[in-house]
């Protein structure tokens, strides 16, 4: 089942649906309305087609009422015109379901915002609104459909009321507000309205009271010979446009419809010039004013082309009708910004000139049928309206229409909303009368539009895109109701000629035609917009702080590419189908782009970058060790060190050369510490077993051999079994050496203590602190084999000297021989608690004595023998006298020399520092 495409919005709907799910429009196939002017004999036919076309339903409906068909020679009755205009209006408003029930008010209050003032003034039935309401853009312009009048700007009316209106309008609206040509036309109409009461001879007959002028214009086609065809056509078109505008009810459509008048150059003798196509000619499916606007726009285009073709000789080479159509319609633009900078003369003066020019050329507007009309082309020439100026000042809605008529018009008939406005421009061949009429009309409109454009351009320097000045006929839209290259060619040619004239003059000033005829209200509007833009420029931009600007994302600063309206692009769907330069709603609504990802890039300057690099280097250097500054060794320091060493060495050696030999003082052993140690050793009973813990380093063997040797000698002399154990690997070996040295000095005890019963070397006790604790608790399990057991299985505890030793407290005494605090502490902490009343003695070196003294004072160590002197003194008890004197002398001499060196060195250093300090202070 194929889907149906909504003619209005273009959405796909199921085939069985009749109403579009999106926009609610009818999906029924609309019979195409051929709006090709060439297909219709007269404009009346086209109008009839429009009348039949139901914009709401998109179908051709038979409209009850007067005859809906226009045939050649058939004239419109006022009722018929009124009816189809009403019909159009009602459809645009969308109020009534049934057009027949539409109760047309006498005065349709069209929104003032959309109706230009000059158009409003054309409405003869329009109520005169107070002056206060003139603040709106289009002021108080109203179009009265019943009377066909536009308030404040009535075009023509034979009614006195209308005349009054005209007078009022003229009074209300200043010359600056209304284009001059329109004003003059109004006046002329008023003046001639009474005289001319000829009914419309052509197809379109004006209504009784308000559309006479329109029909007069239309009827002027039949009397084109009497008048200038251009003028007649322009009048008709203008009038018809105004009439249609009133029915439509919206200013934009009104204006657009006016253009459609110019797009019907084919109107023959009976045809309406500038009459919008009838409903018959309009393809079914066209809905609303969107399609109608397209028709109007295309009509404009064709009209421009037509007018251009009509005056090839006067206006120069024939230009493309499409381009001419766009350009010619530009003058009716609402908000057409000025784009050409060439126009300099602006303001009321230029506008007045334009009005004056138009007024002189067209003193009467609208002109009744048969009335002599001005040569619009001449007016255009006099006004010197350039084509480009008109294009640049083209308001949005007009530019959109230009797009529809413009270059890339490729909307197929099916794409158009509501139907197909297929107008084959090539087939359409305007009649000479039509051409002349169109040309005249277009001349006037062209001149006015250019004047308007020039004024607006001079006041507001906008940056809108410029409508390309020239539009080739090939670029003409194919969806216009009145398409036809021939139709628009004359209009385009006309525009081209005007442009060339304007360029040929080379005047920097805007052509007077641009200024003239531009209503003041338009200028005011441009001025207001210009002021707004200036105000924006006046505003000072805030200064961002440096730190904030540094972290501002660059992508946020870079202006996004403003999506420029592609004026060549023609909207293909939706209510704006056929228009140009339309903001694409459908595409943007569907396609969602990925949001931009802003990358925050810190903007740093070179200075900041250098500082950051410096900081990085500093931080990297933190992990690197500084390079050592190698001090240069000075010879003085080397000599001094050598001297001191030699002195001390000499002092130690001299006694051995019988120099400075001293003797141990007799009272050396009277120290309390030595006495306590001696007392404790002497309290050990003979035959007892004493445990000797040898835990000193080999480097201290010289001192410890002296200290421990005396103790061993004493123990040997008392006949005490000596058990040696060590927690250091070198201990057992050192113990053996100590024993051998002692025995060498006591040869009498050598043989006794050579036996294993008297001297038991328990060996190495691994585990340090933990093994000591184990040994203290279970000695036999801690030590199994002795030092001298070797690979034998002899148990060390089987010796006689260790009989009865099952625990640490079974020893008579424990003597600790150590040079460091850790070993001594380990024995004190692990073994001493298990010893109960067994004394713990210590034979230590001089360096550990101060550290072990607290333990002595605390009672954990009963006695201590520390240092070489005490050992030498204690050894005299067992050694023969004088055997220790050399050692004693050497020690004392070395010690004395050392003290002297220290004192002398300190003194010298102090003196030197005193002098250096004084020097530094003096230098400061």
């Amino acid at each position, binding site marked *: 089942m194929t889907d149906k495409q909504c003619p209005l919005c273009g959405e796909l709907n199921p085939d069985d649906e009749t109403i579009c799910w999106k926009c609610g429009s009818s999906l029924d196939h609309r019979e195409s309305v051929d709006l090709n002017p060439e297909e219709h004999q007269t404009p009346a036919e086209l109008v009839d087609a429009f009348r039949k076309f139901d914009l709401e339903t998109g179908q051709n409906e038979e409209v009850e009422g007067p005859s809906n068909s226009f045939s050649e020679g058939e004239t419109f009755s006022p009722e018929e015109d009124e009816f189809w205009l009403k019909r159009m209006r009602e459809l645009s408003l969308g109020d009534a379901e049934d057009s027949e029930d539409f109760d047309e008010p006498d005065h349709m209050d069209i929104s003032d915002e959309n109706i230009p003032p000059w158009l409003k003034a054309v409405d003869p039935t329009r109520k005169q609104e107070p002056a206060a309401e003139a603040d709106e853009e289009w002021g108080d312009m109203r179009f009265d459909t019943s009377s066909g009048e536009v308030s404040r700007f009535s075009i023509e009316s034979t009614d006195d009321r209308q005349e009054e209106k005209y007078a009022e309008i003229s009074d209300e609206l200043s010359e600056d507000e209304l284009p001059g040509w329109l004003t003059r036309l109004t006046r002329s109409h008023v003046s001639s309205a009474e005289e001319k009461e000829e009914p419309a001879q052509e197809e379109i007959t004006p209504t009784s009271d308000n559309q006479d002028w329109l029909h007069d214009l239309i009827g002027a086609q039949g009397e084109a010979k009497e008048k200038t065809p251009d003028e007649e056509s322009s009048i008709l078109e203008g009038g018809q446009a105004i009439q249609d505008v009133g029915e439509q009810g919206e200013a934009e459509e009104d204006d657009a419809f006016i253009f459609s008048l110019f797009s019907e150059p084919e109107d023959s003798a009976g045809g309406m010039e500038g009459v919008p196509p009838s409903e018959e000619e309009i393809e079914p499916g066209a809905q609303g004013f969107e399609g109608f606007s397209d028709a109007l726009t295309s009509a404009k285009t064709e009209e421009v082309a037509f007018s251009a073709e009509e005056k090839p000789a006067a206006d120069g080479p024939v230009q493309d009708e499409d381009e001419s159509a766009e350009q010619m319609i530009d003058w009716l633009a609402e908000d057409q910004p000025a784009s050409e900078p060439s126009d300099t003369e602006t303001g009321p003066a230029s506008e007045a000139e334009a009005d004056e020019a138009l007024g002189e050329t067209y003193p009467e507007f609208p002109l009744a049928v048969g009335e002599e009309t001005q040569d619009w082309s001449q007016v255009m020439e006099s006004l010197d309206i350039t084509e480009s100026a008109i294009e640049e000042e083209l308001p949005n809605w007009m530019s959109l229409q230009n797009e529809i008529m413009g270059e890339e018009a490729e909307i197929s008939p099916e794409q158009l909303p509501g139907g197909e406005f297929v107008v084959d421009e090539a087939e359409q061949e305007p009649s000479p009368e039509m051409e002349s009429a169109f040309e005249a009309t277009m001349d006037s409109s062209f001149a006015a539009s250019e004047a308007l454009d020039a004024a607006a351009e001079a006041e507001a320097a906008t940056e809108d895109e410029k409508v390309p000045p020239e539009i080739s006929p090939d670029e003409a839209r194919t969806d216009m109701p009145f398409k036809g290259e021939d139709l628009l060619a004359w209009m385009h040619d006309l525009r081209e000629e005007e442009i060339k004239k304007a360029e040929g003059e080379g005047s920097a000033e805007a052509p007077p035609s641009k200024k003239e005829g531009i209503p003041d209200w338009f200028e005011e509007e441009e001025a207001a917009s210009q002021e707004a833009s200036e105000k924006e420029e006046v505003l000072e931009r805030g200064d961002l702080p440096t730190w904030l600007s540094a972290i501002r994302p660059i992508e946020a600063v870079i202006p996004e590419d403003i999506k420029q309206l592609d004026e060549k692009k023609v909207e293909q769907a939706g209510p704006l189908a056929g228009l140009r330069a339309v903001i694409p709603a459908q595409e943007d609504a569907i396609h969602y782009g990925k949001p931009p990802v802003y990358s925050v890039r810190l903007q740093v300057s070179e200075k900041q970058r250098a500082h950051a690099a410096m900081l990085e280097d500093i931080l990297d250097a933190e992990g690197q060790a500084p390079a050592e500054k190698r001090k240069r060794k000075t010879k003085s320091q080397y000599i001094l060190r050598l001297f001191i060493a030699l002195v001390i060495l000499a002092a*130690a050696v001299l006694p051995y050369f019988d120099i400075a030999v001293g003797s141990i003082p007799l009272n050396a052993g009277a120290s309390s510490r030595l006495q306590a140690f001696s007392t404790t050793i002497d309290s050990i009973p003979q035959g007892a077993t004493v445990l000797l813990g040898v835990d000193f380093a080999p480097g201290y063997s010289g001192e410890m051999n002296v200290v421990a040797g005396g103790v061993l000698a004493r123990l040997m002399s008392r006949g005490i079994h000596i058990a040696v154990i060590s927690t250091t690997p070198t201990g057992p070996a050192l113990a053996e050496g100590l024993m051998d040295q002692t025995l060498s000095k006591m040869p009498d005890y050598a043989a006794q203590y050579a036996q294993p019963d008297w001297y038991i070397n328990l060996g190495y006790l691994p585990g340090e602190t933990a093994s000591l604790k184990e040994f203290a608790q279970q000695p036999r399990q801690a030590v199994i084999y002795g030092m001298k057991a070797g690979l034998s299985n002899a148990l060390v505890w089987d010796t006689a000297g260790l009989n009865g030793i099952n625990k640490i407290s079974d020893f008579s005494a424990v003597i600790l021989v150590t040079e460091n605090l850790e070993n001594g502490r*380990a024995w004190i902490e692990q073994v001493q608690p298990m010893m109960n009343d067994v004394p713990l003695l210590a034979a230590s070196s001089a360096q550990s004595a101060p550290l072990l003294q607290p333990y002595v004072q605390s009672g954990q160590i009963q006695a201590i023998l520390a240092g070489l002197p005490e050992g030498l003194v204690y050894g005299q008890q067992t050694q023969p006298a004088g055997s220790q004197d050399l050692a004693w002398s050497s020690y004392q001499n070395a010690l004395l020399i050392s003290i002297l060196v220290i004192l002398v060195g300190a003194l010298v250093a102090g003196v030197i520092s005193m002098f250096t300090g004084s020097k530094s202070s003096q230098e400061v």
Partner: protein
Amino acid sequence: MTLADIIWMLVSLLLTLLVLSYLFGDNPVFRITTYIFVGVAAGYVATIVLYQVMWPRILRPLLIGSFGERIFALIPLILGVLLLARLFPDISPLGTLPMSYLVGLGAAVTIGGSILGTIFGQSKGTFALFNLSAGTVPGNLLASLVMGALVLLGTITTLVYFQFTASQKGQQPVQRAHWIEVLSRIGQVFIVITLGALFAGVYLATIAALVDRVGFIRDVVVRLF
């Protein structure tokens, strides 16, 4: 005096002189001597471990011991082998068990001994100084008290010296309390005296070593010549 004794005596003399060559600064001769000492010590230790530990505690029970001795010997053997795994990064996690056992056991023994042997003992000894009834110095109660006070003062001030808790008041620099600063100054004196005493003891030990070596050289020279 045998030839061996003479040889070893000469070797000892040579090594002693080589060590004394350090008097002229670091030199290769001195380094050779130190290297020899390290090597000899390592070899001697290895021998001691083999004869004093490996054989009697592991090898012998496994080889000729009873079943119970073998079981008891396997446990340390396995743990010892696992401990060797610490040398290889791939299997080092295997040595975590014996290592943890050793660390835990050592920590327990050390901590227990420190508390019972040092803290309690030293505290008891300090208190004993103020035992007017006992007195460390017999017959001199005042001296005992003074000594006790001195010891106590030194102990407290030394401990205060190592207290680094400080505060900042306003814009003033961070500093300790005034009374803490005073006590720390006194403790600093005691610490300085203690360090001096330690240095003196070390120097005395070195002098003693020098005297011993000088005497040895003299004896060797006398014996040779």
